[in-house]
């Protein structure tokens, strides 16, 4: 992996073939429709799938954003909207990937089970910059609660995004920027 950062434009939702073309370390400007969901919403979604019911949004090729935004001020789609820690979603994620989920945006490590499901089904894990909620909020053009409004900040929202900056952390081959990025830096500094 070189130190040069390659920026790619990507439209969500996207197909397995597009997911498999993405490589760990690439910087992406993501546009299109994604869905916000975090802890409590994941539990509900998986329970619903296990009961054999239809999910409240098309899960096939969908991209989920792990975010609990701050409320919107007047004239804005959402308030501050940076990623939350992804590992809390790990217990639910393999089931969602096997039901069509194509991409996830969050921050931090994923479990081996999640990475195995990603490789098997062709799903990709992006990181948005944790703590850059005001910056990311600018890329979110529309936000609409489509289910589980009772969960407040954790409700399921359909988000329309334009050039949302994210980085491919784990690709469909299991390459992982959290492992490789520090390794490259250390190799360069301790040779």
């Amino acid at each position: 992996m070189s130190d040069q950062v390659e920026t790619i434009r990507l439209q969500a939702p996207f197909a397995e073939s597009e997911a498999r073309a993405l490589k760990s370390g690439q910087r992406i400007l993501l546009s299109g429709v994604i869905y916000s969901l975090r802890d409590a919403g994941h539990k509900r979604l998986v329970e619903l799938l296990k009961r054999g019911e239809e999910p409240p949004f098309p899960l096939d090729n969908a991209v989920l954003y792990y975010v609990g935004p701050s409320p919107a001020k007047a004239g804005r789609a959402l308030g501050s909207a940076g990623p939350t820690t992804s590992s809390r979603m790990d217990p639910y994620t393999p089931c969602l990937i096997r039901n069509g989920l194509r991409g996830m945006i969050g921050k931090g490590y994923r479990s081996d089970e999640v990475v195995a499901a990603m490789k098997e089904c062709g799903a990709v894990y992006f990181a948005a910059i944790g703590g850059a909620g005001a910056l990311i909020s600018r890329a979110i053009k529309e936000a609409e609660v489509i289910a589980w409004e009772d969960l407040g900040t954790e409700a399921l929202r359909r988000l329309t995004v334009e050039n949302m900056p994210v980085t491919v952390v784990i690709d469909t081959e299991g390459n992982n920027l959290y492992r490789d990025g520090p390794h490259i830096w250390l190799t360069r500094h301790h040779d």
Partner: protein
Amino acid sequence: MSVREFDVAILRDAVEELCCKLACVLPDDIRDAIEQALEQEDSTVARQVLEDLLLNCEIAAEESVPMCQDTGMVVAFLDVGFDVSFLGDPYEAINEGVRRGYKKHVLRMSVVSDPLRRVNTGDNTPVMVTTRLVPGDRVTITMLCKGFGSENMSRLAMLLPADGEEGVRKFVIDTVAKAGPNACPPFVIGIGIGGTFDQVALAAKRALARPLTESNVDPFYAAMEQSLLAEINELGIGPQGFGGRATALGVAIEVLPTHIAGLPVAVNINCHAARHIQEVL
């Protein structure tokens, strides 16, 4: 000795104002540290993240939008002068300030009333307040809005006296390495050493409230802060864990006397949105 009567409405109104500043304006010491980290950073990916963080701060301050959606649980250190006599309940005043401030500035309500039954209180209260009695007639409030991405990666250990400085260093480095990308690096690391099980954690939290421009007053611990920071920034984790030099922006150590048989150590991690503020009333 004269007693100063202190109307708690002053405290309430101050807290209400401070909430917005805390959430939307990154303190100068942290901002300067990010700029300095950018100057020293040699990884392109890491530089891009640091530039985005500075841009994020600008947008947040300009538009009065929280820099991070996790506007935290509010932690307050209340230092009350011996000569202060409160007119009213200062704890309720602090909570009411947060209630008003979070609502007015549309910050995220992130507090549940019970750790297992988990019902959101809807107003981001209660505040975690620690009170200390100090000489004088002033009331000093120091507030943090503490995000839990980093709080969750913090740790406490009851080391043995034989573990010594080396044991403390190892525990700190290990904790930071384990936190990795989950806790939103570059971090500020608050370390408590000594005291008892409860007090060491509080010392670590107090360390996070200290501006990065100040070192521990004891040259021995000031040197340890510097050497730990250098060692942490050799881990290679870098901004957001993408690889780079800037894993931490600063290390602050607070120490306490302790028991002959113990060496408690607590490491409280703060993310780069290290929101702290102080006001003397």
